[in-house]
Structure formats: C-alpha cells, structure tokens
C-alpha cells in the first residue's frame, strides 16, 4: 500500500470497501445540492404520470381487460415507471465516464488503485439512492393521492419491491456503463445514446406496459435486460407472475441473472479496452 494515502486507507483489507463507501456517499451528497432541479424533475414526472394515467384510463374504459392487465394495473405501472425514471436514468443523464473517455481524463481514473467499474458503480448507486428517497417516494405518493393504485399492503412485499428496485439500478448501471465504455472504440457515445435513450424506455415498459404490445413483440422485450429496469419491478409491485412465473422469485432471478451477466461483460470490456486502446491525449 503506498504510504502517501491518508492513514484511514492504510488497512489493506478494508481499503477498496472504504473508497467505494466514500464515493457512494459523495455521489449521494452531490445530488442533494441541486434542490430546484430535484423539485423540477419531481413535478415533471408527476405531470407525465397524470397524462399517461389519463390515456390508460381512457383505453381501459373502452376495453376493461387486456392481456391480464386492468385499468388499476396500468395506472400503477405508469406511476411506478415515472417514480423509477430518476433512479434508473434510462433516458439520461449519461454517466460522466463517457465525457472523461472522450477528453482523456479517464487516464486519471485508471491510475486509481480501485477498479474503474467499481468506482462508477459506487458513484451511480449514490445518485440512485438520492433519487429513490427524494424523487421516487414523493412521485409514487402523489400518484396514490390522485389515482387508485394497486400498491402492496404488507411490509414483506415492499421488501421484495426494494430488492427488485436495487437490482433494476444494477442492471441499468451495467447497461449505461457499457454504452460509455463503447466510447473507448467509438470516441463519441452520443450516437449510442441517441438510439438507446429511445429504445431503453420502450423496452423497459415505460412508454406503454409491455403486455399491451403484440404477444410476439412483448415476449421478446420481456426476455431482454431492459425489462429488468421497470417491467419486472412493476410486476413485483402488482404481485403478478413475470416471464419465468413463480411470482416475485422468478422476476428477481431474471433481474439478478442480467445484473451478473452485464456487470461481468462490463468488467471484461473494461479490461479489453484498457489493454488495447490508447487513451486520448489531454
């Protein structure tokens, strides 16, 4: 262990854990500075929730049941999705890593004695935690005040929902990390975001619930990792069976599998990139 580090970091075993914890806390605290932006986002998500809910209510007034969904299910999905938008950031903002790869600042990041993926994961989870507390909770509360939502009653099911949201945050981070790591080869990831910023929310079930798509399309989208970001957490809120059946367990299993696969892919892509690609000069 280099001796220029502060003494709190000198314990070899707890060193990475301490760093990640500090990065996480700073990621969380950094967001708490932008109060007006948080309030603005909260307001916008609630307005969009109300508009989408009105569309769903009109649709289900014409057809009371579509592929196992009723009006209350659909309105609940609308608000769960708006509440998750700040946590999973599928429509942006992108991780700052992309800009650092483009400018060459990532060279500094790579000098750090912790993994690149771990550092940005800790930072992003800090951001997600802040948004969960100060955006998701109020949006869902506003939705429950204005509309009839099908929310779980018992604490045990809320625990399952929280687990599912945590896994959603992991899957969404892994995807956004891959979008940015592509920058080692592409240099500019705005094109990736231009496509994924649209495809992501649609495939997650945020534009309209996935069961409303034609059966073939719906089945494909529910297998893809984006479904883990919003569709599966919603199914767990509603107490519905997902693609794998078995209630919440099936959904959590699919999410955990995607999280593990994509994070492993992210780690592999990072090692490939840092070995083979010359970092942009600053």
């Amino acid at each position, binding site marked *: 262990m280099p001796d220029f580090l502060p003494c709190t970091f000198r314990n070899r075993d707890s060193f990475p854990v301490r760093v990640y914890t500090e990065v996480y806390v700073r990621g969380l605290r950094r967001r708490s500075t932008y109060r007006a932006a948080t309030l*603005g986002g909260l307001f916008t998500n609630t307005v*969009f929730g109300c508009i989408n809910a009105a569309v769903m209510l009109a*649709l289900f007034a014409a*057809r009371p049941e*579509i592929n196992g969904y009723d009006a209350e299910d659909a309105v609940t999905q609308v608000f769960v999705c708006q509440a998750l938008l700040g946590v999973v950031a599928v429509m942006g903002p992108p991780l700052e890593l992309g800009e650092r790869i483009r400018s060459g600042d990532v060279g500094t990041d790579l000098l750090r004695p912790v993994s690149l993926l771990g550092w940005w994961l800790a930072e992003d989870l800090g951001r997600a935690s802040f948004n969960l507390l100060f955006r998701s909770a109020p949006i869902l509360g506003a939705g429950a005040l204005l509309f009839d939502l099908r929310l779980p009653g018992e604490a045990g099911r809320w625990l399952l929902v929280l687990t599912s949201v945590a896994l959603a945050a992991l899957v969404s981070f892994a995807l956004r990390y891959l979008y940015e790591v592509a920058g080692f080869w592409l240099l*500019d990831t*705005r094109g990736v975001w231009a*496509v994924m910023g649209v495809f992501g929310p649609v495939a997650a079930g945020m*534009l309209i619930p996935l069961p409303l798509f034609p059966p073939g399309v719906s089945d494909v989208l529910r297998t893809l990792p984006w479904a883990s970001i919003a569709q599966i957490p919603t199914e767990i809120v509603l107490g519905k069976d997902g693609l794998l059946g078995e209630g919440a367990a099936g959904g959590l299993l699919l999410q955990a599998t995607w999280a593990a696969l994509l994070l492993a892919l992210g780690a592999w892509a990072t090692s490939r990139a840092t070995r083979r690609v010359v970092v942009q000069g600053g």
Partner: protein
Amino acid sequence: MADTSFRQAADSVLWPLRSYLLLARTWMRAQAQYPVSLLLTALGTGLAAVSEILAVLVVFDHAGVLAGFTVAEGLLLAGTANLAFGCADLLMGAVERLGVHIRAGSLDTMLVRPVPPLVQLATDHFALRRLGKIVPAAVTTGAALHLCDIDWTLGKVLMLPVLLVSGTAVAASVWVAGACVQFFATDSRDAANSLTYGGQALTEYPLAIYAKEVVLAVTFAVPLAFVGWQPVLYLLDRPDPTGLPDALRLAPPLVALVSCAAAALLWRLGLRHYRSTGS
C-alpha cells in the same frame, strides 16, 4: 426622405428575421462538417417520434374508438400535434437553454451584440437533427389526412396551412414563456419541460379523455388545445365532445397572435429583471 424612413422601418422588422436565417445557416454549415454524426442524431430523434406514434397506434388498436375518434382520426391528431411541436422545437427549442447561458455568463455576450438576444438564443447550436422529429410527424399527418373521411371544401384547403402555422406559433410561445421563467428561477428548466414536452404528450390524444379542468386550462390558460385538437375538430366537422363552443375552432390564428404577444411581453419582462451574474 419618406423613402429612407420607410426603409428603416422595413429594416427594423426584417433584421431579426435576416439575422435568424444567417445564424441558423452558420450553425447548419457547422453541423454539415460531421455528416455521420448529424445523420445518427437525426435518426435517434426520428426514432423517438416514431415510437410515440407507435404508442398511439397500440392504444387505438386495443381501444378501437377512443373518445369518438377512430385510429385514422387519432393519428391525424397525433400527427398535427407532433408536427406543430416539432417545428416549434426546431425554430425555438434552443431557448430552453437560457439557464445555462445565464450561469455561464454567455447571455451577457449576447446582450452586447447588435442582434436581438432572443434570435441569438433561439439559433444557438441550431439543431438540424430536429428535422428527425418533423419528418415522421409530417408523414403521419399526410397519411391520416388521406385515410380520414374529410369533407374537403375550399375553406378547409386554405385553412390547413393557417392552422399548422398557428399551432407552431402557439407551441413556440409556450417554449419561450417556459424559458422566461429561468430569468427568475435559474433551475426551472425541468419544470418548464412539463409544459413543453408534457404539452406535446397531452395534445397527442383527444382532449376529451382528460378531466374537464384540464380541458379548460389548456383552452383558456395555456392554449395547447389550439395546437392540434381544435384544428382537427374543424377538419373533421366534429362537434366538441367536451361541450365547449364550436366557434373556438376558428380561433387558432387569433390565439397564436395573442400567445406570441404574451410570450414577447414575458421575454421583455424577464430581460429587464435580469442582472448579470458578474462572471
């Protein structure tokens, strides 16, 4: 003598327009240097517009008829609303970055140049990729006009472009008015999004599906009803299912004038209130 004062008057009216075109062309030429990037971002924007129209199709496909509107009529509404918002976004969308300019101090630079600051703000990074939003909306509108059972008269043919221009003007005023709030609260961009992008989402579907208060608000307070809803009622000769007077459907040009004037007034008020950050 009278001739020169006439020329001066004409110049003062035409100068904002000419400077707008000049600045927009400069930015377009800059973007043309990166054709692949321009094409990809335009495709991305187009993809977003197409996915929204597809969502409207999925909803109408399940519902059959929504608030008395068939699929084709629903597409006409979504198409015209998206077309007007798309054009407004292309022409005026950049004003939403006002807060960024205030923080960076670049608004001060704009204020000392001999070009109207609103023109400079609207043309800053003039984003040609937004054509990606206009093209699918125009195609949808065209197809829907063909599919809908419209009783074409000379009046309707003449009114169609007037209604589209009025809708664009109303949407552009909403954009400017939303941006002006940033003079007073620099961080209000996200909140203004609920008016601009939210307004677009709201007007994609028949207004009759929303609560009566919402319909009244978007008719008389923030006149989003005149972007797509009232024009489509006029084209289809449909009585207003929300029970508002039928005469309103002839109002879009007037509403456009009033909302442009209101937005201009707000802009002046904001500019007068503005104190530089000093950086």
